[in-house]
């Protein structure tokens, strides 16, 4: 058997791998962008199919179904309008109080809805892809959430899609606040949480923590990456460590990332 082609090919693959792994982050991102462009026709075709399915579904729905859906939506709309009135009153009160105590006003969120178009093919990362990119105003580091709570942050941005690092991924460690006790901690993930994507570890709580299972966990706003007060989840268990410098806990996330179809990105 002629082994020469195998030797040449092995040399080529080894050199190429060494070059690719030695690339700086920016160049590695550009290589990924170029390689990912092969998938653009497939993602576009899927989006077109989705639109066609929605169009067909809207055309084939019966009058009874549409009336029932309309009634349901009208009822939800009524409830939401009442809640908005209540929130508006609270916001006014908040504004007055902020002026009285000379506290800086918070900005309104500028949201953009994105669809989940893919998930990380590797089992050792927690990321997903959305159909919003730099052309839609998305930038690296922007928070991503759903009405239930925080999902993660934008990690890589391409022109028409972005990769979101989910809570628990090594690229998305975040500072949180446990609500009643107002204690801060850092959310991370390790091997113990691989089996369940909705459970993450909470580290660096005070040694004599007052946090209890069931306490709500929200973003602390420290580091200015995530706005303060976004729901993250609830404490599942707390392991106080009186002799140690700090104690750990486990958090059940509010959002099950494996079932996400749509997410909101907070634009700058």
């Amino acid at each position, binding site marked *: 058997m002629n082994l020469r082609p*195998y030797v040449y090919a092995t040399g080529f693959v080894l050199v190429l791998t060494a070059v690719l792994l030695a690339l700086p982050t920016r160049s590695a991102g550009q290589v990924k962008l170029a390689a*990912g462009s092969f998938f653009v026709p497939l993602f576009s075709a899927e989006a077109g199919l989705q639109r066609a399915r929605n169009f067909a579904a809207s055309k084939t729905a019966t009058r009874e179904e549409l009336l029932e859906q309309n009634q349901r939506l009208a009822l939800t709309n009524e409830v939401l309008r009442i809640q908005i009135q209540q929130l508006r009153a609270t916001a006014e009160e908040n504004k007055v109080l902020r002026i009285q105590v000379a506290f800086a006003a918070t900005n309104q969120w500028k949201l953009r809805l994105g669809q989940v178009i893919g998930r990380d093919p590797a089992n050792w*990362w927690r990321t997903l892809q959305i159909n919003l990119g730099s052309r839609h105003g998305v930038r690296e580091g922007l928070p991503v959430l759903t009405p239930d709570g925080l999902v993660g942050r934008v990690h890589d941005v391409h022109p028409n899609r972005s990769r979101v690092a989910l809570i628990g*991924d090594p690229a998305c460690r975040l500072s949180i606040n446990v609500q009643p006790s107002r204690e801060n901690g850092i959310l991370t993930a390790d091997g113990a949480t691989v089996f369940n994507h909705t459970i993450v570890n909470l580290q660096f709580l005070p040694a004599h923590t007052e946090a209890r299972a069931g306490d709500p966990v929200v973003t602390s706003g420290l580091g200015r990456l995530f706005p303060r007060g976004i729901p993250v989840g609830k404490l599942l268990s707390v392991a106080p460590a009186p002799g140690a410098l700090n104690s750990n806990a486990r958090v059940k996330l509010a959002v099950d990332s494996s079932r996400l179809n749509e997410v909101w990105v907070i634009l700058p």
Partner: protein
Amino acid sequence: MKNFYALGLLVIALLALYLANTLEWPQRITGTRIDPLPALMVCAALRAPVLALTLLAVLGSLWQTSLSADPPGISMIPLFAVGVAVSLNRRAIHTRLWGARFAVAAAAGAMVPLVTVGLLILLGRQPLLGWFSFWQLAVMSLASGLLALLFFPLLQWLDKTVEDQPFAAPYDTTTQIKRSPH
């Protein structure tokens, strides 16, 4: 015509990677994302020349990592190693036996992610690993074996479609018959 076969192989790889990236149900049922490339590489290595295997390893790895948080091309070496190992030993593998195809692809399905994770750790990355990773490895291995049963007839059909003759000669083409001058 050889180019058509290599092109067809790459198209199958692209589609398989796209499906693995977008299909939700394998992860919902098993908690594991399935990697189609090791099975495809094993089936390709049983028929295709080293050029097609190199293309599959390079482009397949780059495409896969473009959808992932992995550094670009991290799985290139393990994929290529699987391809070369199978290609060099193709005559020792009973490709007509389903069990043989399954076993080789299952071994490749376990080897590729293991080496990839090893490389990631060597590069200083922190992949999420735990006891559950053993289960994921077992599922990936099993799925790779099953995918090989699907890919093998597909590549056989592709080979027959674009080639008049088998893509790889079933005998050693470097052997020369020298006749005596007498």
